């Protein structure tokens, strides 16, 4: 894939601190509302959220194309707000690539060096280093309109890296590409990050992209940061209902905490879930007050599903329900089942397919099934975002 040995000693980049940044458009619309975060040196950090959530605004503020109404942005411990974009040690990979149509791929990459009026030999050496990094040797003398989407993307990345920025800002760089190509480029991007070693700030609305490459993710909605954490933390312990729904798929219900006690490192709570007509055992990383109104969430792939004449393995704090398969959806490596419980509530269940012999009897439409999950697999989230 990427020949990472071609790039010289990695620079470590800078840490980026966003302090209480607020940006208001048109007098009332808060694109960013008191946003704070600290992005570590050399980190691959993602800003994840639905379109219009403010993530691109934040990126543009860091790049210098927009300025906040209040708050500050620091590279290491220096405020950069007073610097114009060309004076900041950040470079951007734009969503639409923004390649200069009148210049070849080579000249696009050389653009920052030409501005510095470096001599031809130095320019050529440095351009070729990055041309090889992104594997564009064959195409470097083509104009952007002769390049495919993936190739344009590589030019954009090489051009953004050639100034050896301490922060690389990526604004949905893969969104214009088809799914397969996106996966390949994502892996390459990760390799480039490992070798170049500078801080990457990656804006995306695609949760699977963010989960697969990021060191940490900030989930943003309506201009507010809802949660900052590793992909594991965000998926397994979402802070709010929005995060739980936005990342992956989930079943989510209103609940009231009935009891809550220390249980190993975590807390074991019994909650009343009106939608399921029953009480459910669930663990949480934080203690919860008795009587608190929360949301209970269980990921579909963490629910076990068997035909109801089979036995569910018995253990403590196991939640078991009976139901009828309302809608089985076969999708290759897994099947999705929409299971209708006795009270009419539908629960999503994903079953990972295994080898033919281990897969158990086939579950079909209208089959009676038992579904079960362990308390540790459920999670409690805050109701309001």
């Amino acid at each position, binding site marked *: 894939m990427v020949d990472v040995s071609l790039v010289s000693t990695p620079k470590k980049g800078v840490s980026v601190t966003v302090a209480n940044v607020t940006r208001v458009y048109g007098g009332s619309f808060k694109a960013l509302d008191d946003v704070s975060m600290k992005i570590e040196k050399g980190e691959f950090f993602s800003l994840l959220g639905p379109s219009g959530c403010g993530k691109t605004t934040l990126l543009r503020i860091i*790049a*210098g*194309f927009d300025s906040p109404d209040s708050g500050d942005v620091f590279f290491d411990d220096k405020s950069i707000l007073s610097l*114009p*974009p*060309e004076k900041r040690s*950040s*470079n*951007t990979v*734009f969503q*639409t690539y*923004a*390649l*200069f*149509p*009148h210049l070849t791929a080579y000249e696009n990459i050389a*653009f*920052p060096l030409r*501005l*510095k009026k470096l001599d031809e030999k130095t320019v050529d050496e440095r351009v070729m280093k990055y041309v090889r990094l992104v594997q564009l040797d064959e195409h470097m003398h083509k*104009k952007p*309109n*002769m*390049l*495919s*989407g*993936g190739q344009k993307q590589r030019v954009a990345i090489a*051009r*953004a890296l050639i*100034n050896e920025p301490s922060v690389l800002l990526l604004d949905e760089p893969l969104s214009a590409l*088809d799914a397969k*190509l996106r996966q390949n480029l994502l892996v390459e991007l990760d390799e480039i990050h490992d070798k170049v070693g500078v801080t990457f700030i990656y804006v995306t609305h695609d949760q699977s992209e963010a989960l697969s490459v990021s060191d940490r993710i900030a989930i943003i909605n309506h201009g507010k940061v809802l949660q900052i954490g590793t992909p594991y933390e965000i998926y397994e312990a979402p802070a709010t209902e929005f995060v739980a729904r936005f990342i992956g798929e989930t079943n989510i219900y209103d609940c009231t905490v009935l009891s809550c006690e220390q249980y190993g490192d975590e807390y074991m709570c019994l909650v009343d879930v009106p939608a399921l007509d029953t009480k459910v055992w669930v663990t949480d990383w934080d203690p919860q007050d008795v009587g608190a109104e929360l949301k209970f969430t269980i990921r579909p792939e963490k629910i076990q599903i068997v035909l109801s004449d089979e036995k569910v393995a018995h253990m403590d704090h196991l939640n078991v329900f009976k139901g009828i398969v309302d809608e089985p959806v076969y999708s290759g490596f897994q099947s999705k089942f929409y299971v209708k419980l006795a009270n009419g509530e539908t629960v999503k269940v994903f079953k990972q397919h295994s080898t033919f012999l281990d897969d158990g009897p086939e579950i079909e439409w209208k089959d009676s099934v038992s579904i079960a999950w362990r308390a540790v697999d459920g999670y409690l989230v805050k109701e309001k975002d």
Partner: protein
Amino acid sequence: MGRRIDKKRSVILGYSYSSPMGIWLSIFFVVPLSIIVAYSFMKKGLYGGVINEFSIKAYKDIFNPNFLSTVWRTLWISVLSTAICILISIPCSYAMARSKRQTLLLALVIIPFWTNSLIRIYAWINFLSTEGFFNNLLMSLGIISEPLSLIYNHFSVILVLIYMYLPFAILPIFTVIDKFDFSLLDAARDLGATKFMSFIKVMIPNIKSGITTALVFTFIPMFGAYEVPLLVGGMDSAMVGNIIVDQVQKTRNWPLAASFSVILTIVSMIGVIWVMRTSRNEVKMKKDNKIAEETFKKEAKV
């Protein structure tokens, strides 16, 4: 086999479809132009008209110092006015392209076209003359005590020429700036260019075709301008267009008028060829786009 016949038939069909255009152009463009070229190589008749004899005297007459100074004046006035037109058009078009009231601004540029150009020139005469609006205003404000001579000189010719042909410069430049991807300027800034450098290195090369069109669209009519120097120019601001009219109507030297017209036509044609070359490059770029699309499709299949 069938394909070859089809191709031959489609060529014939193509000619027949375009024949009305061909006939129209022959009658109203090629024939008159040929007559002018023919006249320019004939001897002048005593009371106008021409004598059917070959002569290049008309072309020799152009080198009369009086005429040469007029040609030179025409050239510098047109070049200067064109340059100012373009310099005004770029920021204007930029503002229009970025404005939310684009349609309104576009209408404001186009609406003056609906008024006869003579009327607009007379409006300027009223505005600029010694007793005109501008001088009266400045005098009543006490800024000046004597009227400025704003009219019947080179200044007024250049001013009114710019006014007349500004829309011809704004429209093509507006069209390219409107299509311009402004994120390219962000990209240039991001990569270390100052505002000015990103304009020079990124914006200008990408709107070049519009600027070329604007150059030709303004320079050609200005170079052949007739009514503006006649109505607002002074004794010494006659341009080539005025010579031609004088030679036809007053001096009655038709071959000389024809030879000047031929010169004007050649200058215009050079301009048109230049524009066609620029636009051909753009067509080539579109073709490249198609090829790229196909390679991309192939790649996607792989």
